[in-house]
C-alpha cells in the first residue's frame, strides 16, 4: 500500500508539471492558432537560464525565479511571437509546423552553444525538507509543484473569464478581424498569450529539472507529454488539459512501478506519454474541413523530363568521377548524402507536393534498413521488399488518423517516430538495445557490388531514378490532383475525391521511398543501428529540406549533401556544434514561409545569368544565336518561379 501511495504521489507531481506545461501550450494555441512544437525546448532553455542565475551566478533562488518567470521568459515569449510567429495564423499548418520545429532545433542549438555539455544540477526547492503522511514521504518540492499547478489553473481561469485581457484573448481566436473592429488588439492578446505560455513552459521545466536532470533533449521531449495532455483537452479546454496532465503523470508513474523493468517491454515505460498521445489523437473527433480563400503556392517550375534526365546523368557521371578521386571513407560520406537526398525526395512528394508534414521520415528509413539487414543475400528484389515493408508501415501510421488533417497527422508521425526510437528499434527482434545489425552489400542482376566507390555510384543512380519518378508523378494527372488537394481539400472532396485514401497513399509512397533510402544505407554502411534512425534526425531532415527547397528535386539533392556534412562539421569544430543547429533552425524559421527554399533562388539566379549571357552574346555577335541548350540556364534553372506560368502545364 505504501508503495502504491508513493507512486501515486510521484504521479501527481509529474502530472502537475505536465499540466502546467500543457496549459501554456493550450493558451498559445487557442489564442494564436499556432501549435508550438518548440514549447518543451523553451522550457529547456529557461531551465538553463534559471540554472545560470541560481547556480553559476549564485543569485538567491527567489530572485532567479522571479527573473526567469516574470522577466526573461515573458519577454522571450513576446519576442518570439513578434518576430517569428506573427502572421503565421493564416499560413498552412505545414508552414507553422516547420517554423516551430525550426525554433525547437534552433533553441537546442542555442542551449548547446551557450551552455556546452557538462554536469550540472539544479537542487529541489527546499531540498531536504519533507512531510510524512504515515509511511509516505513527500518532499516540499513535490508539494510546491502540485500547489503551483493549482495556482496556475485558478489563475488562468480568472484571467480568461474575469478580465478584459482574457476576453480579448478568447475573442481573438474566433475572429481577430471583429475584435479589431471593436477596439481590441488581437496582436496584444497574442503577445500576452505567448508571454504567459512561455513563462509556464519555463516553470514546468524548472520544476522538473531536479528530477530528470538538466538535459537538452530530455527536457525538450517533455513536450510530448504536454502535447498529449493538451490533445485530451482538444487544444482548447483547460480543465480537460489539467485532467490529461494528471492522468498521464499517474499512468507514467504506475508504469515505472509495476511494468517489468527488463526484456523487450523495458522501453514501454519510457513511451507511456507517446502511447497516450497516439491514443488521444486516434480518438479525436473528425476535424471539419476549412472553407477558405483561393490559396496557391508559387512553386518551382517542373523541369522537362529531357533536361532532368540530362542533369541526372551529369550527377551520376560526377559521382563516378569522385569514386576515382576520393578515398573510400569520403565516398561513404557521398553515399550518405545520396541516402539523405533520397529521403528528402520522399518529403518532396509528401510535403512539397502534398502539403503534409512528417516528423518520422527517418523512422521509415529505419524500417527499410531493418528489413534489408534481415535479408541473407540482398538483391534488387530484396531492396524492393524492404521499401515495400516501409511503405506498409507508412500506411499503418496514416490509417488510424485517416479522419484527421494537418496538425494531428503530423503529431501522429511524431508519436510514431518516438515509439520506433524508444521501443521498436531498441528491442531484440530489431537492432537490439544499443546494438547493431550487419548488412551485406547488394547484388544487382547476379553481380555483387562490393567496392564502396561502385556502391556509391549505385546509390547515385537510385537517387536519380527516384527523382525522375517523383517528377513523372508530378507532371501527370496524379500530381495535378496532389496539388489541387493541397490548395483546397474542401473543393476536392466536393468534386468526389476521397481525401483519406489519397493521404494514406501519399504516406505509403513517401515512406516507401524513405525505406528504399534506408535499405541502401544499410548496404552502404554494412552495420546499422537504432542511432542511425533517431527521431531528432527526422526533424533536422525536415528543416534541411525546407531550407533548400522542398518543392524541387534539386532542393533534395542539395539538402541531402548538406545534411550529410552537418555531423562532419559538428565533429570537426566542436565549439561550433550548437551554432550549426542554430543556423539550421533559425534558417528554417526564416525560410519556412517559402517552401521553395534556396534551390529556387539558385534557379532565379541561373535564369538571370543565362539571360545576361544571351544579351551579351547578341550584342557582341549580332545576328547569331546562342548555341541551343545554352540559352536557358541550368536544367532545373527551368524550374523558376513565374506567377503566370503554371506548374505542370
Amino acid at each position: 500500500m505504501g508503495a502504491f501511495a508513493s507512486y501515486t504521489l510521484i504521479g501527481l507531481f509529474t502530472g502537475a508539471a505536465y499540466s502546467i506545461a500543457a496549459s501554456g501550450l493550450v493558451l498559445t494555441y487557442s489564442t494564436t492558432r499556432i501549435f508550438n512544437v518548440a514549447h518543451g525546448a523553451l522550457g529547456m532553455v529557461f531551465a538553463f537560464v534559471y540554472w545560470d542565475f541560481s547556480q553559476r551566478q549564485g543569485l538567491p533562488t527567489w530572485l532567479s525565479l522571479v527573473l526567469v518567470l516574470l522577466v526573461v521568459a515573458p519577454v522571450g515569449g513576446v519576442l518570439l511571437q513578434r518576430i517569428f510567429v506573427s502572421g503565421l495564423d493564416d499560413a498552412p499548418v505545414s508552414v507553422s509546423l516547420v517554423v516551430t520545429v525550426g525554433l525547437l532545433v534552433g533553441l537546442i542549438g542555442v542551449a548547446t552553444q551557450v551552455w556546452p555539455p557538462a554536469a550540472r544540477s539544479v537542487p529541489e526547492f527546499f531540498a531536504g525538507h519533507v512531510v510524512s503522511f504515515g509511511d509516505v514521504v513527500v518532499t516540499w518540492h513535490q508539494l510546491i509543484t502540485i500547489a503551483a499547478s493549482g495556482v496556475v489553473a485558478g489563475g488562468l481561469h480568472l484571467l480568461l473569464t474575469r478580465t478584459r485581457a482574457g476576453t480579448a484573448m478568447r475573442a481573438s481566436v474566433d475572429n481577430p478581424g471583429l475584435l479589431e473592429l471593436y477596439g481590441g488588439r488581437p496582436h496584444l492578446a497574442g503577445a500576452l498569450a505567448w508571454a504567459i505560455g512561455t513563462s509556464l513552459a519555463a516553470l514546468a521545466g524548472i520544476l522538473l529539472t531536479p528530477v530528470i536532470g538538466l538535459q537538452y533533449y530530455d527536457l525538450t521531449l517533455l513536450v510530448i507529454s504536454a502535447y498529449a495532455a493538451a490533445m485530451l483537452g482538444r487544444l482548447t479546454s483547460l480543465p480537460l488539459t489539467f485532467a490529461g496532465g494528471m492522468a498521464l503523470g499517474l499512468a507514467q508513474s504506475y508504469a515505472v512501478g509495476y511494468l517489468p523493468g527488463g526484456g523487450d517491454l523495458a522501453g514501454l515505460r519510457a513511451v507511456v506519454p507517446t502511447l497516450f498521445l497516439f491514443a488521444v489523437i486516434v480518438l479525436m473527433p473528425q476535424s471539419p474541413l476549412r472553407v477558405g480563400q483561393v490559396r496557391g503556392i508559387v512553386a518551382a517550375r517542373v523541369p522537362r523530363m529531357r533536361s532532368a534526365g540530362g542533369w541526372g546523368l551529369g550527377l551520376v557521371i560526377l559521382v563516378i568521377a569522385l569514386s576515382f578521386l576520393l578515398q573510400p571513407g569520403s565516398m561513404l560520406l557521398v553515399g550518405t548524402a545520396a541516402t539523405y537526398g533520397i529521403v528528402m525526395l520522399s518529403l518532396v512528394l509528401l510535403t512539397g507536393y502534398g502539403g503534409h508534414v512528417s516528423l518520422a521520415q527517418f523512422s521509415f528509413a529505419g524500417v527499410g534498413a531493418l528489413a534489408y539487414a534481415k535479408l541473407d543475400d540482398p538483391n534488387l528484389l530484396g531492396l524492393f521488399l524492404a521499401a515495400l515493408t516501409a511503405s506498409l508501415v507508412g500506411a499503418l501510421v496514416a490509417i488510424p488518423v485517416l479522419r484527421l488533417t494537418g496538425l494531428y497527422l503530423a503529431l501522429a508521425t511524431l508519436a510514431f517516430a518516438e515509439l520506433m526510437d524508444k521501443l521498436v528499434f531498441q528491442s531484440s527482434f530489431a537492432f537490439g538495445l544499443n546494438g547493431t545489425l550487419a548488412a551485406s552489400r547488394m547484388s544487382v542482376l547476379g553481380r555483387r557490388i562490393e567496392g564502396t566507390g561502385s556502391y556509391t555510384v549505385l546509390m547515385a543512380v537510385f537517387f536519380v531514378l527516384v527523382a525522375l519518378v517523383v517528377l513523372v508523378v508530378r507532371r501527370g494527372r496524379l500530381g495535378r490532383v496532389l496539388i489541387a488537394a493541397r490548395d483546397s481539400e474542401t473543393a476536392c472532396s466536393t468534386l468526389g475525391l476521397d481525401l483519406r485514401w489519397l493521404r494514406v497513399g501519399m504516406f505509403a509512397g513517401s515512406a516507401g521511398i524513405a525505406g528504399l533510402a534506408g535499405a541502401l544505407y544499410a548496404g552502404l554502411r554494412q552495420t546499422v543501428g537504432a542511432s542511425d534512425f533517431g527521431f531528432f534526425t527526422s526533424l533536422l531532415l525536415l528543416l534541411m529540406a525546407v531550407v533548400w527547397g522542398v518543392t524541387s528535386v534539386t532542393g533534395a539533392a542539395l539538402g541531402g549533401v548538406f545534411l550529410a556534412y552537418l555531423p562532419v562539421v559538428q565533429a570537426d569544430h566542436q565549439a561550433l556544434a550548437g551554432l550549426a543547429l542554430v543556423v539550421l533552425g533559425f534558417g528554417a524559421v526564416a525560410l519556412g514561409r517559402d517552401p521553395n527554399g534556396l534551390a529556387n533562388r539558385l534557379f532565379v539566379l541561373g535564369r538571370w545569368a543565362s539571360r545576361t549571357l544571351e544579351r551579351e552574346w547578341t550584342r557582341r555577335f549580332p545576328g547569331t544565336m546562342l548555341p541551343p541548350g545554352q540559352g536557358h540556364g541550368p536544367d532545373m534553372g527551368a524550374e523558376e518561379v513565374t506567377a503566370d506560368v503554371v506548374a505542370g502545364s
Partner: protein
Amino acid sequence: MSLLAVEDLVVRFGGVTAVDHASFEVGPGTLTGLIGPNGAGKTTCFDVITGLQRPTSGRIRFRGRDITRSPAHKRAHLGFGRTFQRLEAFGSLSVRDNVRVALDIGDGVRGLFRPPVDDVDHLLARVGIADYADRRADSVPTGVARLLDLARALASRTSVLLLDEPSSGLDERETAGLGALLRELVAEGRTVLMVEHDMDLVMSVCDGITVLDHGVVIAAGTPAEVRADPLVQQAYLGHCDEGAGTETTSEIEPVTETIPTVRP
C-alpha cells in the same frame, strides 16, 4: 416526387443555431432559389447537403435515399456539385488545370494513369472565361474565379448543382449571361439550387424559391407567391428598418422595389 429533400434540419454551432428545423424540397429538373438575409443559414444548408457539415439533427434525402451520413466525396459520385461563396479555386494551378482536375478526380484511380490530354476549353468558353485559361487561378479577378468554380462543378458531370451566390463579383452583362446559362443547364436536365442575393436574377430565372430567416424556412413557392408573402416582406423590410450594414441594405433593395404595394 422531389429529387432532394431537406427534412427538419437543425445545425447548431456552440450556442448559435444556424439552421432551425428547416424543411424544403427541390424537384428534379428545376431551378430553385434559396434566399434570405445574411446569416440566415443558407450556406450552412449547402454545407450539410454536400456533406461538408454534419447536422445536429434532421435528414437529407436524395431520390428518397437517406444520405445524411454519407461523406462529401460519395455525394459527388451521386451527382452533387457545388460552388463556394468564399471561393475555393486551386490557386497553384492554371484555370484550365482547375477544370482538368475535376475530370481527373471524376475518372478515379484508373484515370490517374491515363495521359493528361483532356480538352476542357469548351467548358471555359461556355461560362465565358476562355481568355483566362492559362492564368494561375489565384491571379484572376473574383468574377472569373466564380465562373471557374462553376465550370469546374460542370466538368465533373454533376446532375445536382448547388451554386452559392454565383452572381456576386459579376457585372450586369455577365449576370445576364449567367441567367441564360442557368436556364440552359436546367433545360439539359440538371437540377439547380442557388443561394443568391441579386433579386432580379432570382425572380427572373427561378422556378421556385425558398426563403430562410434566422435558420427558419419562412416561405416557399413560385417567385410570384414568395413576392406576395407578408412574412417575407416583414423579414426583409424589418431588417431594412434596423438600418443594418451596407451589405444587407444592398441585397434588400431589389425586393423593396418589387413589393411596395402589398404592405399591410
